[in-house]
């Protein structure tokens, strides 16, 4: 089985904990990483890349000290090493200008508002993970039971 990661970035510990808790369903097939800042996330990305691990989904808050979430996601978007990594912005404090940037520059794959519905978050991440696995040509057999079936059918056919 390939090593596939989902990274969560938020400067508030409690938020990270609850995101991880909501995604716990996926934790036996993928590795869920937590970062408390954009800089920490970029370092982690370097490390994962050096080990040739996949980064399927990057979930980021927007307003954080230092680099903002949109800046982080934009950097990942233009880096050819992370081609295809799905980007989800999870925030309650993005202005319209931020949102426009997030869509145009970071090519956001999904946008969820805080406070989020745990079921919706899990479902969204499942769909994004499925898309990533199929698009990158990873053997999906190993992950079948945890993937989103409708998305899988749509992409595989």
């Amino acid at each position: 089985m390939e090593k596939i990661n989902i990274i969560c970035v938020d400067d508030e510990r409690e938020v990270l904990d609850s995101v991880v808790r909501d995604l716990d369903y996926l934790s036996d097939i993928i590795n869920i990483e937590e970062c408390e800042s954009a800089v920490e996330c970029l370092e982690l990305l370097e490390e994962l890349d050096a080990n040739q691990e996949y980064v399927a989904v990057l979930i980021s808050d927007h307003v954080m000290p230092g680099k903002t979430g949109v800046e982080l996601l934009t950097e990942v978007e233009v880096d050819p090493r992370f081609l295809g990594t799905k980007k989800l912005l999870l925030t309650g404090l993005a202005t319209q200008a931020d949102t426009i940037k997030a869509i145009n520059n970071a090519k956001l794959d999904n946008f969820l508002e805080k406070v989020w519905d745990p079921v919706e978050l899990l479902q969204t991440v499942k769909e994004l993970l499925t898309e990533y696995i199929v698009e990158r040509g990873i053997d999906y057999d190993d992950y079948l039971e945890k993937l989103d079936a409708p998305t899988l059918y749509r992409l595989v056919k």
Partner: protein
Amino acid sequence: MKNNMKFILPILIPLIILLLPSSSFGIEGLTLVEQRVIAIFVMAALCWVLEPIPIYATSLLIIVLELLIISDQGLWFTKFESPELGELISYKVIMGTFASPIIMLFLGGFFLAIAATKYRLDINLARVLLKPFGQNPKYVMLGLMIITAVFSMFMSNTATTAMMLSILTPVLALFSQDDLGKVAFALSVPVAANIGGIGTPIGTPPNAVALKYLVDENSISFGEWMIFGVPFVILMLAIAWFFLIALFPASIKEINLNIKGRFLKTPKAITVYVTFIVTILLWLMGGLHGMNSYVVALIPVAVFSMFKIITKEDLKKISWDVLWLVSGGIALGVALDKSGLAKNAIDAIPFAGLHPLLLIAGASLLCLLMANFMSHTATANLLLPLVAALGASMHGLLPYGGEVVLILAVTFAASLGMSLPISTPPNALAFASGHVETKQMAKVGGVLGIVGLLVTYVMLFILNQMEFI
């Protein structure tokens, strides 16, 4: 109307050829099969020159038409027994061109290139190898050219150019608007890629096409090719470098190529490095282990598939169009040869009166000219079967090295066509950067083409004197 001509001509002219009485070709005892081969050849030539359909589609069309009208399993009315019918070609031979050893050699090359790119061996090597060249624009350019040439010996010229230009583009943006150095840099990469392709049998498809005609006592191994190919590349690179820095001197004093990244050290990456090195060594040491380069080429294919280095998804990235383009050329050669047309036609035309040196110069100049306006591979596909048949029948050539000299001169000429953006995909990519004008490219490419041809002649003369070929 002008637009329609490119569709009408490739259909009309071959049809006329098919319908003419066989006595009208001036070839004694021309069979029906041979006449059909002429029609297919003319159609191929027109399709590759006028490009009404993609060039690889022309290749597929050649193979399918051969199966339909000159194979032993073709359409019923093409097989009526008659004294004029001639020799039908086995369908297995025609289909076999898809998997000819030359295609397998290229497939192996593609696997190496895809794995090298996927595990960033190419970019990391470029980063390390560029360091010693410092920051003086002149030497950075020399470094870029050497690395581009070395890579294009093993990877496709186009992929190498794309990679090097992507490194170069941010740097070119720092040049002032009227700094001619920009032109030199933008041109240095495609020039080096085109020249570098000459260095090995897998460097560029025309070399592969040539291998089909370099058989038996004329065969050239991977290592032997490199013994003359690499010095040729070095000399041409030096000439190109001097020419570019003289023509387009840079006023910027310092440039900094910033390539990020580090060598991957995962087990898969290490497998790629080892396989890459071992394959090249096996290719070079052909005599020691008994495997020829075609057999060696399949080793990386098996290794990379086994270790999931090249996955199902990566398989889709293989340039099947290039492989098929070459297959079509091989099929064309097979048809000319097996039908007996090549021999008959050469016998009918009084080439014996022609001076052999005139033939070598004429054929290579024609090839250079064609390669400037159309695909290098298509040029080689069309010219090499004719040239090979001609060379084999001309005894006057023997003192000058025989058909090998003729074939190599034409093959090298095919790679030297690089004076226009449409000449080769690397040229087109460099032109797309917006830093080069067609005029400038034509000057550099034109001069290098002619100089390259002269260097080729000198090299072949020396090789012949040394009795190497």
